[in-house]
């Protein structure tokens, strides 16, 4: 492994940030309503210099209040899923692990739906009510990953095939429960496509973006402190333990943080699949499997991927929108098969 320097890490990240910026500009430009690059640039400069009031109300509404929040949401969701995927892949020592494939996203969806169902009965304070759904999603995600982890263990060792099968089956079981709940309950629950496929189309309250951003930074930061341990874990749990890694602690911390990230993403975007699978792979291919590089690059890469997928979702059949998860699944599922076959070969 090449020794990692801060300069190289910053360089890699800044290259990705430049790509992210370009993708954001493209995402801002394209949509159901055509916007010229000139108007876009002018309005963005005004936003940067705090002169939002001068933006023509037409573009202002569309770019600043519709596309920008959506892109920001896509960024956080993509980064969260991608970091969660990277973490699960390291912990389970399985490159095919991903919150969606392992059923964790479905578990988070179910948790969020249950939280929405009990919410009116608790009549909580507004703040608690706002946090109840992410909390439900987090608990659902944690419970699911624990279940899948135990399903995947055979004679004290994680068995890749069993683990993946366990995840897929758990996911489909949980989806069935979601379907059951949705077809028996009426009321103001979000649509089924949201929980099954994922969507970014609804702008959120301002405070929620803060909660998401800070939540992501804290959880991703916690995972990043274990980056070196995750590198050693790649060699095997026993080996890592011999090298002085407190494996049970790292495992617990990373599981909880990654479940939190999954719950965070699912509570605002539903179950967007395959991002946590593909992005870490691409980043590993480009930058190598050192988690000190992989985690931050995967975060930025995840943001790029989801924004690109969502831009497609908004534009392919505009003005009607496709769930973003449909786009990520169409691209992600074949890639998953490819990776699976290459691994088996």
């Amino acid at each position: 492994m090449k020794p990692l320097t801060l300069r190289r890490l910053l360089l890699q990240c800044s290259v990705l940030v430049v790509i992210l910026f370009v993708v954001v500009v493209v995402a801002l430009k394209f949509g159901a309503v055509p916007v010229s690059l000139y108007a876009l640039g002018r309005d963005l400069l005004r936003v940067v210099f705090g002169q939002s009031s001068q933006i023509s109300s037409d573009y202002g509404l569309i770019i600043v209040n519709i596309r920008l929040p959506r892109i920001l949401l896509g960024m956080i969701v993509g980064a969260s899923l991608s970091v969660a995927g990277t973490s699960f892949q390291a912990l389970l020592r399985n490159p095919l692990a991903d919150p969606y494939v392992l059923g964790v996203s479905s578990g988070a969806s179910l948790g969020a739906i249950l939280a929405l169902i009990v919410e009116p009965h608790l009549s909580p304070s507004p703040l608690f009510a706002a946090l109840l759904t992410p909390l439900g999603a987090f608990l659902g995600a944690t419970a699911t990953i624990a279940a899948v982890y135990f399903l995947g263990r055979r004679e004290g060792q994680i068995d890749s095939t069993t683990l993946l099968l366990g995840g897929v089956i758990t996911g489909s079981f949980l989806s069935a429960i979601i379907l059951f709940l949705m077809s028996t309950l009426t009321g103001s629950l979000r649509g089924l496509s949201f929980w099954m496929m994922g969507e970014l189309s609804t702008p959120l309250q301002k405070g929620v973006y803060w909660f998401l951003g800070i939540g992501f930074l804290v959880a991703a930061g916690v995972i990043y402190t274990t980056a070196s341990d995750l590198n050693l874990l790649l060699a095997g749990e026993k080996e890592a333990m011999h090298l002085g890694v407190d494996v049970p602690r790292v495992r617990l911390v990373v599981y909880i943080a990654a479940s939190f990230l999954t719950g965070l993403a699912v509570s605002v975007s539903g179950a967007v699949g395959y991002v946590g699978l593909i992005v870490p792979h691409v980043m590993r291919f480009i930058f190598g499997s050192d988690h000190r590089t992989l985690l931050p690059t995967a975060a930025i890469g995840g943001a790029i991927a989801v924004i690109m997928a969502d831009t497609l979702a908004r534009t392919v059949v505009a003005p009607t929108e496709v769930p973003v998860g449909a786009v990520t699944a169409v691209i992600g599922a074949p890639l998953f098969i490819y990776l699976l076959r290459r691994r088996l070969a």
Partner: protein
Amino acid sequence: MKVSARQRFTCFLFAAAWLSWTATSRAQSASPLSTASPAFREVTDETGRTVRVPQPVNRIISLAPSLTETVYALGLQDRLVGDTDYCDYPADAQKKTKVGGGISPSLEVIASLHPDLVLVTKSFNRLETVHSLDNLGISSYATDPHTIEEIIASSKKLSDVLGVPEAGVAVAADMQRHLGDLQKRLRALPPKRVLFVVWHQPLTSVGKHTFIADTLRLAGAVSIVDAEQDWPQVSLEEVARLQPDFLVFSASHSDAVSPTVDALAALPGWNIVEAVSNRRIAVISEAVNRPAPRIVSAIEDLARQLHPDAFMEKPESGKEKLQKENPAPNLPLAAHSSFSPDAAQAQMFFPGGCA
């Protein structure tokens, strides 16, 4: 040089600073939009929300076919600046700017049309759409009629909100006059037991709290399905056990892939339903699926097909007009007029997706 924990932390801080900058710029830019018109009127919509309606309402967007029809019925078509892909009646509504489907309309297109008011209906649109519009400072007014009486009241109230109360009174009076005539004819007749088929695969009917159930009642019929749920799935066995006098479908001219009555009779298992083997099938226009003034014509049409005797004595001129409007029984059936993928979503995801 190896990366120390401190350097790693610095890097992390960079990322944090960048993300929080993005968040800040977003927070700053989200200042409420300057609303041009100073005059507002506060009204309570049918879901109990207080809505600030700009006065006068010159630019309307409708997010449901029924609302588009109501706007036309009120003579406000010139103020309608946008509607959905499924708004196909009257034909002129197809020429309006489309904002997408009712489930996932494009907020961008809606915003770019600068509407004074966006009309939504609870059974067809999603709560998230309303929240999104709220966040963008766009007023939206929701209707939620469950009976024919409520459709009349709803149209009347909407006309008032849109600033043309006289048109609403006229539309309501016309609807009530037609219904009154109909009740006179049907008064003495026992209701026919029917199964209203919303969709045939899976067999889906209507629950008792839907306006379609009320439509059946007013047409001298009663649904054999008595469900609390709005769009219950019914098993063929249950239908065979209850043996309805008639099956009722709604027709659609737009959906050519749907089966004809003959094809339906040929479907496996359906011949155990006597109404199918005896071809006692009533096909009425898709107006029945839309809680708009035109639903009265569907009620009259159904009553005519179920109780032909009640209409025997005078084959009046209105009948010709009705037949022109309502397709003959062998036209393609679309159990649910707006049963396009989007409406299918509406039904699956938001039980109660008919408008």
